[in-house]
């Protein structure tokens, strides 16, 4: 995009963001067709694009978006209900808008090609056609207004609390006397009106006089706060449903308090309402509990439940929601983004790396010359350098959520294409990792998701036959684990068929027919080149190229990928990735006069390598670490196979962990923590076993960064065959 002017570039970016927001909103609407926010966001996208396009004279864009905007305006005004059909057309419109804008960005003066013009016309007809079929649906707001029953008591007796007490059947038997609570209530204020009802009025013959049938609705005038009033009924809590609706004058008071709430952080609706005293914590807890119970059915938002239960008046809830939204927006605005050229950031990170190294060099000189007065200054500086390093790295961290949400569209489109019903669940979207890693993980992730869509999830008929719900679920999950990020793609589909994988692998000559493999080894065969168990290749996947590429891409990021599956139950692919590719906290050790760096986050503990304590088995290379069999590796021997092992007087065992696996590295000396700037190894050394990179030490020496995962595998391999004989 080098040949377009900056204004256009901004325009392109803005359009991109708007269209992404629009897509998200459209997909969101599938779940909640009445969500006013989503509809507004879609309308805003089309409206803004129309306006900006006008500025640049892109008349075709204006003409097209105008039509979409008109339709959306009608949706917004409630003249038109949104349905799957309209969403599909609007999604197509979104794609089309992107296309024609793309065209004008690069060929500013050329007219729109006939194909695109034709598409514009088709879509407009569809939009209007869709509109004509179903016009004049009632607006969502009107519907809501109908549902909400206005309690007579709340409107006319404006200044009173309305307390509803519904006693349960056993209340009297449990020693409750409702009258005594009401008597006590009198001490807090004046009872204006009481309505006694018996909603489950039995015939007098069937009535059990020891049951309680009484419900009370009390209009109560008091200046006490909600908590105090609630406390009156504290003892009745178990035997009575209590609802306390604040008076309208209180309502204004609450509205005022809401307006005065500090806007420094986004709070949950319940928290806000408790803070201003409109709700008590007990009420929130009860409602939330109820919300959880209803989980299986459709979960309603807290605000809606409060309204339904008549615990609070609508204006207060609306105001609280508005306030919440305002705070959110304010915070968003405050944390406004500055667009920075990625190259500049990269340069900064490099500089910080050099700074870390020269800081270490200075540290070395200070120690060498024993300059105690410089020492303080030097430590302060190294602290600052550490902070700068963390902050600089933080700059490049982005949440993985955005990458995840992009798959909503993929899932939506592909499931339609394949005639499957698939839902995408995203968790852990707030986990952060380096932008460069995010960019590079996108392709492998797409591949894995498509695989799950195509191979994993069955057709609705197959699923029903297998006794599973018609709708398949694909989950994307991310979390941090010991300095790495773990990304999981799981589906509840048919799982991997290990027999077929083995048969295929044998046919392809990947394994020998008599080879004995563990389940996980078999599953991981799918990452071998040329292995696909799908009988027929589709245009999505199944040609047997891909999984090996996925693995290669991930390993290029110093990550790893593994797969687990249960036949008929589903498949989970787990990816481990480093958070950043630039600088890490390292742990420096020395073996055979050579220095090595182990990523600190993987170090579990360091113990003395003493044979009395750990029952070292020198032949099979394992120790008994507090009852646990731990394979170990002598780093000196491993990297200097031909050098004769000179026994140092004291050796240390560094226990490292990767995922679920552990191993010990035996080293001569521990040097402690070290800020490690990762320098990639040259092409020549790329495939070195057990080495992940190198770093420059303060002294100018080079230390090798260990590939812990590879070394653990190696250590295990040396142990297992021998152990199997025991």
């Amino acid at each position, binding site marked *: 995009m080098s040949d377009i002017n900056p204004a256009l570039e901004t325009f392109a970016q803005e359009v991109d963001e708007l269209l992404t927001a629009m897509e998200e909103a459209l997909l969101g609407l599938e779940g909640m067709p009445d969500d006013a926010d989503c509809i507004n966001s879609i309308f805003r996208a089309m409206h803004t694009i129309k306006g900006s396009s006008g500025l640049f004279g892109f008349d075709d864009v204006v003409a097209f978006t105008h039509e979409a905007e008109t339709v959306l305006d009608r949706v917004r005004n409630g003249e038109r209900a949104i349905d799957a059909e309209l969403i599909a057309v609007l999604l197509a419109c979104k794609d089309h808008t992107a296309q024609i804008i793309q065209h004008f960005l690069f060929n500013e003066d050329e007219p729109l090609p006939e194909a695109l013009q034709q598409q514009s016309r088709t879509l407009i007809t569809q939009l209007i056609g869709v509109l004509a079929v179903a016009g004049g649906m009632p607006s969502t707001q009107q519907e809501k207004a109908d549902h909400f029953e206005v309690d007579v008591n709340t409107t006319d007796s404006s200044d009173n609390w309305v307390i509803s007490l519904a006693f349960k059947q056993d209340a009297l038997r449990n020693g409750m*006397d409702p009258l005594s609570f009401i008597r006590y209530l009198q001490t807090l204020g004046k009872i204006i009106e009481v309505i*006694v009802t018996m909603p489950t009025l039995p015939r*007098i013959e069937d009535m059990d006089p020891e049951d309680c049938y009484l419900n009370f609705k009390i209009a109560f005038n008091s200046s006490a706060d909600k908590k105090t009033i609630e406390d009156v009924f504290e003892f009745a809590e178990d035997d009575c449903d209590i609802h306390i609706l604040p008076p309208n004058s209180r309502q204004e008071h609450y509205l005022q308090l809401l307006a005065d709430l500090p806007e420094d952080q986004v709070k949950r609706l319940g928290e806000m309402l408790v803070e201003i005293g409109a709700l008590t914590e007990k009420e929130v807890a009860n409602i939330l509990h109820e919300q959880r119970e209803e989980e299986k059915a459709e979960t309603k938002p807290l605000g809606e439940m409060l309204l339904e239960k008549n615990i609070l008046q609508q204006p207060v809830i609306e105001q609280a929601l508005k306030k919440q939204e305002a705070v959110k927006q304010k915070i968003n605005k405050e944390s406004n983004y500055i667009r920075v050229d990625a190259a500049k950031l990269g340069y900064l990170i490099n500089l910080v790396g050099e700074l870390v190294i020269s800081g270490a060099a200075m540290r070395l000189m200070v120690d060498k010359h024993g300059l105690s007065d410089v020492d303080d200054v030097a430590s302060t500086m190294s602290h600052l350098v550490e902070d700068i390093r963390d902050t600089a790295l933080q700059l490049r961290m982005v949440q993985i959520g955005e990458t995840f949400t992009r798959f909503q569209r993929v899932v939506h489109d592909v499931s339609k294409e394949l005639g499957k019903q698939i839902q995408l669940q995203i968790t852990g979207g707030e986990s952060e990792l380096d932008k460069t890693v995010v960019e590079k993980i996108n392709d492998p992730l797409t591949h894995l998701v498509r695989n799950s869509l195509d191979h994993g999830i069955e057709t609705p008929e197959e699923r029903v036959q297998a006794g599973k719900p018609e709708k398949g679920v694909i989950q994307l999950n991310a979390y941090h684990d010991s300095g790495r990020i773990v990304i999981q793609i799981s589906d509840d589909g048919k799982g991997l068929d290990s027999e077929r994988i083995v048969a295929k692998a044998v046919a392809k000559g990947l394994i020998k027919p008599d080879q004995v493999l563990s389940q996980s080894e078999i599953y991981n065969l799918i990452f071998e080149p040329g292995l696909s168990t799908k009988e027929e290749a589709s245009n999505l996947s199944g040609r047997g190229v891909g999984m090996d590429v996925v693995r290669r891409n991930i390993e290029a990021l110093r990550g790893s990928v593994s797969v687990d599956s249960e036949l008929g139950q589903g498949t989970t692919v787990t990816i481990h990735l480093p958070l950043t590719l630039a600088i890490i906290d390292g742990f420096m050790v020395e073996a055979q006069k050579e220095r090595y760096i182990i990523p600190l986050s993987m170090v579990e503990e360091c113990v003395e390598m003493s044979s009395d304590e750990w029952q070292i088995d020198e032949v099979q290379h394992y120790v008994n670490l507090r009852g646990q069999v731990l394979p170990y590796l002598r780093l000196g021997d491993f990297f200097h196979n031909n050098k004769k092992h000179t026994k140092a007087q004291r050796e240390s065992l560094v226990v490292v962990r990767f995922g679920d696996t552990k191993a010990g590295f035996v080293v001569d000396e521990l040097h402690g923590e070290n800020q490690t700037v990762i320098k990639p190894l040259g092409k020549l050394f790329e495939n070195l076993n057990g080495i992940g990179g190198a770093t420059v030490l303060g002294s100018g020496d080079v230390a090798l960064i260990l590939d812990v995962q590879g070394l653990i595998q190696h250590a295990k391999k040396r142990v297992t065959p021998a152990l199997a004989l025991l």
Partner: protein
Amino acid sequence: MTAKAKKNDGTLCVPIMDDMTIYNAQSLKETLLGYCVPGTRELQLDLSAVTEIDSAGLQLLLLLKAEAHKRGFTLCLLRHSAAVLEVFELLKLGTYFGDPIVFPANWKKA
């Protein structure tokens, strides 16, 4: 515990001689149910001897009132005792039952 006096015109006038609480609600109900017989046109309950009334007693009275309406006879409450008055006042029930209530001059103090 209760005595009844039946008049020819279907008016039944009975004093309630006991407390109206959960402890005797069961027997009280049986008694009251006994009055809801065909032929009764008006049931007068004399409440002057009720020294204590709780929710169980109250709900019996409420139920009886509803039952009377259903069966087409009139329920009159007479000579409310202080305890009954207190509850009626608390729950503003006077108008619901619609019976003339005689307040003793010093009932609030008691």
